[in-house]
């Protein structure tokens, strides 16, 4: 009983420990404490369900029996916007809140069979900003001099139903049908719908209620065990075409008789095509290494992949470019009961300096991700997991245009992220 109580106390501590994870582009770079601790790498290294269901469904074929993962990521950003216009300088700091992303994954393969099954509910993406109005800021001065108070909130969940098949002892292929649920709010929506006062000033309406949209997508992958010490893997995720977000809103021009009258706003944000590939190495019986590459095609994606910048006198949001990501992670079994993990992830920044103004609602400047974590086997069937991710502050600096596109100064948007994940991995 004494041992039992010690285990319970340890579990309690692990559950309550404030620990960390991270994000690149709009997506979290890893899924769950194991994959996140390894820098999100593992497209050719089967370890547990969350990484497999997120990056390569073919990895499901490697499970023996059932593997269940449950994890929660807590993260916090720290956004700063610095403006320079002539000799005047200003700084705005976004009000920061802890974001919470829960995740669940399950995979199953009857050791006598060749077919494996997986299911999950995985928080895969998010961004948020919350700027108070600031009369001394050019960007956030109350309308019509600036945009005034701005907030954004985006959350995305992937629900994969996945299958994998062991074609030969060395080769497994997998596919998943993914339902995506995303929620989005932005106030004001600084896009093409605005109200014009008689003096030519623009007032943008709000789309502030967190509203949902769904998409379907597919994911296909393979896993090849080239030798006992080396494996290869790759996967392809199709683009995600979400329904248009729709909000009840109002006319925003306070000088107009129509101020406050009903209007409906629409905006579309789709998801990118993703190509992942990697190698898994097992240099010793206790050590596993994963090295991955990933290509995320944001360009041309509705919402994220628009032109950005000033288009026909309006601010086009996002304006992101395609990005490459390189990931590496290592796991070492220190004792029978404890595994430690470390990882590094470098992602190109999707934000483009020439349209930095478009990044204000989602200044995801994250490039270098340093991660680590550990797992403690509490029972033969249960490993308690924790990981941390730190993304140091990075900047995107570019011209600060007015709505005619004339450059009036410089805009420096920067962000850093600290996150922690805790979770449980069951095998039975």
């Amino acid at each position: 009983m004494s041992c039992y109580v010690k285990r319970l106390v340890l579990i309690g501590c692990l559950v309550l420990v404030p620990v960390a994870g991270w994000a690149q582009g709009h997506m979290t770079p890893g899924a769950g404490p194991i994959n996140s601790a390894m820098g999100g790498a593992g497209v050719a290294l089967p370890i547990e369900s969350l990484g497999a269901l997120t990056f390569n469904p073919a990895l499901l074929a490697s499970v023996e029996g059932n593997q269940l993962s449950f994890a929660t990521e807590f993260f916090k950003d720290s956004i700063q916007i610095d403006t320079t216009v002539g000799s005047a300088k200003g700084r705005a700091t976004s009000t920061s809140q802890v974001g919470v992303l829960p995740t669940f994954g399950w995979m199953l393969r009857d050791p006598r069979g060749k077919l494996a099954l997986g299911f999950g509910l995985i928080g895969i993406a998010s961004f948020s900003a919350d700027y108070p109005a600031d009369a001394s800021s050019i960007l956030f001065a109350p309308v019509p001099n600036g945009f005034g108070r701005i907030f954004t909130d985006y959350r995305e969940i992937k629900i994969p139903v996945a299958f994998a098949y062991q074609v030969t002892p060395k080769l497994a292929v997998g596919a998943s049908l993914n339902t995506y649920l995303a929620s989005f709010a932005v106030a004001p929506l600084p896009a093409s719908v605005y109200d014009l006062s008689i003096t030519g000033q623009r007032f943008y309406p709000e789309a502030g209620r967190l509203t949902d949209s769904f998409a379907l997508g597919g994911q296909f992958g393979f896993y090849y065990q080239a030798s006992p010490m080396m494996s290869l893997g790759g996967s392809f995720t199709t683009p995600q075409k979400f329904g248009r977000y729709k909000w009840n809103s109002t006319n925003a021009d306070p000088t107009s008789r129509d101020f406050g009258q009903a209007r409906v706003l629409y905006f579309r944000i789709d998801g990118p095509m993703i190509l992942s590939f990697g190698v898994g190495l097992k240099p010793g019986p206790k050590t596993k290494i994963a090295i991955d590459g990933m290509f995320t095609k944001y360009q041309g994606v509705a919402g994220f992949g628009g032109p950005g910048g000033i288009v026909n006198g309006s601010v086009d949001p996002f304006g992101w470019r395609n990005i490459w990501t390189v990931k590496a992670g290592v796991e070492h079994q220190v004792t029978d009961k404890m595994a430690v993990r470390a990882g590094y992830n470098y992602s190109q920044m999707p934000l483009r300096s020439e349209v930095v103004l478009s990044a204000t609602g989602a200044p995801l400047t994250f490039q270098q991700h340093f991660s680590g974590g550990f797992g403690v086997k509490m029972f033969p069937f249960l490993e308690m997991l924790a990981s941390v991710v730190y993304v140091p502050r990075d900047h995107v600096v570019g011209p600060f245009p007015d709505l005619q596109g004339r450059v009036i100064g410089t805009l420096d948007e920067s962000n850093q992220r600290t996150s922690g994940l805790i979770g449980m991995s069951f095998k039975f």
Partner: protein
Amino acid sequence: MNCCFRRLVLVGCVLLLPVSALAQGAMLHGIGPINSAMGGAGVAMPIESLGALTFNPALIAGAEGNQISFSTDFFQDAIIIDTRLNGGLTGRMTATSHLSIVPAFGWMLRDPKGKLALGFGLIGLAGFGADYPTDNGSLLFAAAPGGFGRIYTDYRETKIPVALAYQVTPKLALGASMNIYMGSFAVAPLPYTFYDVDPANNRFYAEAGKLNNSWAIAAQVGFFYQATPKMSIGASVTTPQNFKPYTWNATYANPGSPLFGQPRTTTFDLDGPMITSFGVGLKPNAKTKIAIDGMFSKYKGVNGFGGPGGINNGVVDPFGWRSVWTVKAGAQREMSDKLTLRLGYNYSQMPLRPEVVLSATGAPATFQHHFCGGFGIKMFPFLEMVTSFYFVPRQHVIGPFPDLKGKVQGTLDESNKLTGGLIGMNFRF
């Protein structure tokens, strides 16, 4: 492999089925497809982790080995606001309805050789939302300052319990859990004390529109007593949840003022109620289980929900809810080794008070009669796929429609109905 394929297809079908669940007050009436199908009853009936972690931590002592539940509740309400002025003029507003999705995860463990049991969960527990467009044909939703204009609310609450239970005697188990609550709340405008007045004395309310988070910690204690092989009793108490006040960046709202758009901060305190649950579990035969529960939710006096409501000093006080009693009953019948059917009914008093119906507009939770059902299919020895549905017919709260001086201008009829479905997986090993 053929059999395996059939099972996989069945799993896929169950996962994709459009099914349902329900809510009372701000809280869901039941958690997970099993508890929800039984009307939320089961404070004295250990079946699975989600019901135990939500209503009575002592029930986790009933686990044999590991039991893990994962589920998602999909529900959609249908709010209608009818106004009738003393002069006979009538109006109707239909809120824009959104599908709500609430996931839940629960795990409980007891070593069959030991007396101590452990549980952990992440449980979507409560929520409400309303989304009214501006409507100049409506007194309530006419553009400000004629009415409140466009209004939206969004509230979501998650409970994260870490629970322990101890088998004191072969018949008696005691349990306790420490619960972390995360609430998220948005309301725009916040029709409360933060308003701007123009020279004509018209009011313009500031918004609190970003879904912001707040946290609370509370405890839950309970017992489970197996009086006879056919009857058990159980009860639990959940302490009130004292959330930190929500804070939002906002702006001055009077469009005619030079301060329009200037920064301000809005705050609102929305706490959670004390809850007492008690019940009896019956096993009339080897294949049938029946649960009958009572529950008292003390909303009165709770910051936010339990304020006075109505018009106070010329301000609309939100919610104004009263304390409510709930009666729940559910039955489970094993039809075969692989199929289990469940049915339930839940009657909850309405927390809304007719005399302050205006205060209910942001959360017209009129739900009283909850009709529930569901089934579970054992796909593998360790896995039951479960699904349930519920329907809460339209119910009304009707009362006076006052102006901000408290003078009654007519009648306000707020009504709502709810349809929901849950799917989930129940693992035992």
